[in-house]
């Protein structure tokens, strides 16, 4: 218990104030007398764990409400309009109003739907997103747990959201939803590989999977040491959270609302919550792994630096969304398999060579490594971009002689296929 109490400040505060004459609290941290009598340490442990989880999950919900408002204000700025400004000061309460409204809407379950799966899907969607936040250190001693397999835990938990999307799509019994779900799975599984491999360089420098350990190992932010890894991870996490330019699961002009087509009321609300919480979650991962997490000058508390970096990444994601059009599905999958996958392999080999040459680098050697990595990163991104673009042009020219195949459309119903083919 020593380690856990020592590391986790919030847990220690609650636990030591509750449990009566726990030896650790009295002898090592100087707490005098708790609320419970001696012998009730287990109850204090349960209550402290519950309160800790309660604080964090409510913090996430509050952050989601705030981030929806902030993003809508930013969209307003980008599109030269006002954005929400009616409810509360600067429209601050408009997301609260939306949340209350969505709760009291009629809940429609289509007659073709698989009722059990239809109800489970939103829960499965939001659960992994909550689990991301359990291992992220948000400041010195501010975390739920710091697992020694933290990064692997995040990767394994987030891969569940693909399952949730396909369950939601399948349970709706709606062909548009099913197409959307299949596309989502194709994109999610394709981008999971570059996402996982782009972190390998970070692991080689840090030598640990624990996120707290990764933050402590960053003498300079890993974005400087791992530009290629950051580039790939940023794109892959945009794809994993279904953001533009990779948001073809919810391409309105093709699929309506995609897998959300038949969802209404609170189930829709939970999907919405999961989507925005996932955005915050992936920005939190980027902040922790590449932007040195809670580290910053000592004039302000560590939690502030974490939040500041988180907000900067969130704004960058909104900026990307406002600036780029949606890509086609063939472009998205080609980018994952033919572009990002190769970039991660280059990154792994380059990083491995550097780590072998300088096993215990001094500060100057770290800067040399950063410089070499940038020299590797920029040309390889340019070369891969050129290769992908040339391929695209060739396909268009060759396509003239061939049968024009409608891009991105799935197989039509058999009754329709003959009519289209006959001309």
């Amino acid at each position, binding site marked *: 218990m020593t380690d856990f109490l020592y590391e986790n400040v919030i847990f220690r505060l609650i636990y030591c104030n509750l449990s009566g004459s726990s030896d650790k609290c009295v002898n090592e941290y100087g707490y005098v007398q708790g609320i419970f009598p001696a012998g009730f340490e287990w109850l204090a*442990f349960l209550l402290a*764990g519950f309160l800790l989880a309660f604080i964090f999950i409510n913090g996430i919900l509050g952050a989601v409400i705030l981030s929806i408002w902030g993003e809508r204000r930013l969209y307003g700025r980008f599109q030269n309009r006002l954005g929400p400004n009616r409810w509360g000061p600067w429209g601050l309460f408009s997301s609260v109003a939306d949340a209350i409204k969505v709760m*009291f809407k009629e809940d429609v379950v*289509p007659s073709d739907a698989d009722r059990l799966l239809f109800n489970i899907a*939103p829960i499965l969607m939001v659960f992994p997103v909550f689990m991301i936040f359990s291992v992220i250190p948000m400041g010195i001693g501010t975390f739920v747990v710091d697992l020694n397999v933290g990064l692997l835990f995040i990767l394994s938990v987030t891969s569940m959201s693909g399952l949730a999307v396909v369950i939601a799509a399948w349970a709706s019994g709606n062909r*548009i939803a099913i197409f959307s779900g*299949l596309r989502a799975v194709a994109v999610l599984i394709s981008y999971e590989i570059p996402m996982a491999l782009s972190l390998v360089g970070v692991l080689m420098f840090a030598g640990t999977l624990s996120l707290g350990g990764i933050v402590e190992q960053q003498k300079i932010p890993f974005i400087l040491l791992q530009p290629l890894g950051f580039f790939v991870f940023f794109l892959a996490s945009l794809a994993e959270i279904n953001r533009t330019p990779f948001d073809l699961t919810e391409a309105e002009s093709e699929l309506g609302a995609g897998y959300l087509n038949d969802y209404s*009321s609170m189930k829709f609300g939970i999907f919405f919550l999961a989507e925005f919480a996932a955005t915050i979650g992936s920005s939190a991962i980027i902040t922790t792994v590449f932007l040195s997490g809670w580290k910053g000058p000592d004039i302000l508390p560590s939690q502030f630096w974490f939040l500041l970096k988180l907000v900067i990444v969130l704004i960058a994601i909104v900026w990307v969304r406002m600036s780029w059009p949606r890509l086609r599905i063939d472009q998205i999958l080609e980018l994952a398999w033919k572009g990002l996958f190769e970039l991660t392999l280059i990154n792994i*080999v380059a990083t491995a060579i550097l780590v072998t040459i300088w*096993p215990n680098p001094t500060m100057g050697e770290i800067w040399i490594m950063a410089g070499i990595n940038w020299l590797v990163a920029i040309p390889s991104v340019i070369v891969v971009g050129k290769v992908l673009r040339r391929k695209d042009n060739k396909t268009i020219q060759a396509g003239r002689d061939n049968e024009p195949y409608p891009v991105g459309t799935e197989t039509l119903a058999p009754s329709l296929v003959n009519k289209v083919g006959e001309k």
Partner: protein
Amino acid sequence: MEYYFHQYGVLLIYTVLALFVPVGMLLVSYMAQFIKVRPSRPTQVKLSAYESGLPPFSPKPVMFNFRYYYYALLFVVFDVETVIIYPWAVKYGLLSQQFGFIALGAMLVFLFVVTIPFVYAWRKGDLEWIYNQK
């Protein structure tokens, strides 16, 4: 040992709460039906699948492009690769101090073996979404 027990105990409590929050939201929304706040007036049109306003004409089960399976198969291969690379990467600092470039060479052999099916799939055209048959 006790340390891990406490850590995963807190994680378990967090997991239970993370599952309970969405379930509770759905339950509260469901309960609102009984105090006449949330309407519930299903009609046949409302309960049909929404296919852009047309009467639903999907065949069941829906047919879809078989290309999705190629990506699923490739994913299995390379996800296993990731699982094997991770422990190597975490301990690479120690390995390289002990074995030098041999530690890298061992992984390069593995990467080379895994790259062969990737190149094969690329040459065969399985990575293209639009399949131009010559």
